[in-house]
């Protein structure tokens, strides 16, 4: 830690570079973490297929924009729409028909689902790493002495927009308030008319849309292949735990923190250690502060 701070102080521009790069990837983690959060808070389920929503988003984007030549904006909308329908359809067709499923049953089903999606993607798109063109050119530019690619701005902008929309949805609409009520106290919520099946469907729909968008906007920087969902999912999960699972602002804080931390570690230590950061963070948070940075202590029934 000391080493990091000293290094940062010595090389100011490098520090800023790390932070901006960290925020870029951290924004993606934040979107993923929000996906985990929204499903967890309304159904107490960790959706281990969250990363696969991102992978599918990226793959579809590649197909539409690179193969079919559809303009980026339309490809984006089309890809997100399809993945969202897959997420909602999965909830309706697989989870909804289960009679009083236990949380662990659903978690196991999501693990099965993620394996299925990976296998399907491998079959459809093969094992190659695919590149997607950035939304608006790839000429790097300087910002306060740090170098950024234009795609970073798209990522910041989209994440900011998403956070604002999520805030409005959960605070300014009746449906959103119902979702929060169900997260707070499922029993009392159902007694004032909040329907658990509806809540679950909305949560899966939002999570799939978030996952797909994250996978698409990061693809021009990190490429996409059938197995990118695994790492993205785990990083998103670690971010959600770090910020406080089930708490939307926590997901954003967790994602951005993990992104910056990861980039700094990659700058100071050999970059191969980068992926270990998320898991180290996961272990430390679970040991020292299980409710996360912003989360409240979960009350036991």
């Amino acid at each position, binding site marked *: 830690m000391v080493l990091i701070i000293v290094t940062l102080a010595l090389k100011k521009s490098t520090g800023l570079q790390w932070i901006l790069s960290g925020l870029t990837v951290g924004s993606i983690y934040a979107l993923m973490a929000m996906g985990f959060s929204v499903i967890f808070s309304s159904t107490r389920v960790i959706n281990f297929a969250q990363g696969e929503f991102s992978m599918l988003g990226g793959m579809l984007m590649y197909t539409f924009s690179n193969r079919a030549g559809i303009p980026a904006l339309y490809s984006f909308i089309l890809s997100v729409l399809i993945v969202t329908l897959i997420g909602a359809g999965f909830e309706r067709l697989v989870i909804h028909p289960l009679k009083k499923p236990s949380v662990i049953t659903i978690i196991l089903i999501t693990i099965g689902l993620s394996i299925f999606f990976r296998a399907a993607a491998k079959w459809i798109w093969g094992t190659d790493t695919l590149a997607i063109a950035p939304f608006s050119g790839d000429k790097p530019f300087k910002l306060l002495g740090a170098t950024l690619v234009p795609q970073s701005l798209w990522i910041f902008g989209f994440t900011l927009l998403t956070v604002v929309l999520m805030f409005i949805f959960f605070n300014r609409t009746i449906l959103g308030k119902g979702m929060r*009520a169900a997260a707070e*106290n499922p029993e009392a919520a*159902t007694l004032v008319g*909040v329907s658990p099946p509806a809540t679950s469907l909305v949560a899966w729909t939002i999570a799939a849309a978030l996952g797909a968008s994250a996978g698409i906007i990061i693809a021009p920087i990190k490429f996409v292949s059938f197995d990118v969902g695994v790492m993205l999912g785990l990083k998103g999960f670690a971010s959600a735990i770090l910020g406080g699972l089930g708490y939307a602002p926590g997901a954003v804080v967790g994602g951005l923190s993990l992104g910056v931390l990861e980039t700094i570690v990659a700058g100071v230590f050999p970059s191969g250690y980068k992926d270990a950061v998320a898991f180290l963070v996961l272990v430390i948070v679970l040991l020292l502060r299980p409710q996360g940075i912003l989360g409240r202590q979960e009350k036991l029934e």
Partner: protein
Amino acid sequence: MSGNGNNELLKVEHVTKLFGGLAAVNDVSFTVNSGEIKGLIGPNGAGKTTLFDLITGIQRPTSGKVYFKGIDVVGMRPDEITSLGMVRTFQTIKIFEGMSVIENVMVGRHSRTRTGLFSSGFLLPRSRKEELETFEHSMRILEMLGLETRAFDAGTNLPYGQQRLLELARALACEPEMLLLDEPAAGLNPYETQELTQLLERIKSDGVTLLVVEHNMGLVMNISDEVIVLDYGEIIARGAPEEVQNDPKVIEAYLGSGIGNAKG
């Protein structure tokens, strides 16, 4: 008790709930007519709250039928029953933490609004309009209960008595035809209890039917048109408040545990 189907709002028929071999509720039958206030009393552990759980879909009866507005509600989810117009409150307060007073009430409007994910997600004008109407409706309920000045405080920051009122406000926001109140006066001081009594009379005059579980005899005897007495899961007496009060079986059931001490 003869089958005049029009006036019967709630009909409970031979409802039994077994926990292991023990009957928490045993062959209970009664009806609640539209517009009346029915009191449900009984010593601790008599099965009152279990009976509420069976009626509102939290638990499923081992046997027996529950009809609300002629619809068989056994096996329906609590939120579906709420949407039909039967809403309950709890013995222990269940306010949504992290939500303001007005938001707590607005959630109660959930089953009375129709905007789906699509339109609220895209903030269509219809969703905005509905949100505004919901807000105004909820504010009127808070005004009726005298909570309007606390509308934007956190729900959990209210004093205990007002939290109870907030729960009532949330239930009223569902526009119930029938309210099931589980010990609404628990923890209230005599002044607050007096206010609650007037409030329940007012709710009744607005056309809401009430089924009230209560330990405060004064309150029950004051407001109820008819009282049902439950002991060990069975109905041991029913009738007008003054009849029930003088029923030897009731006095026996309560002996040493309440009725003598109850404030009239």
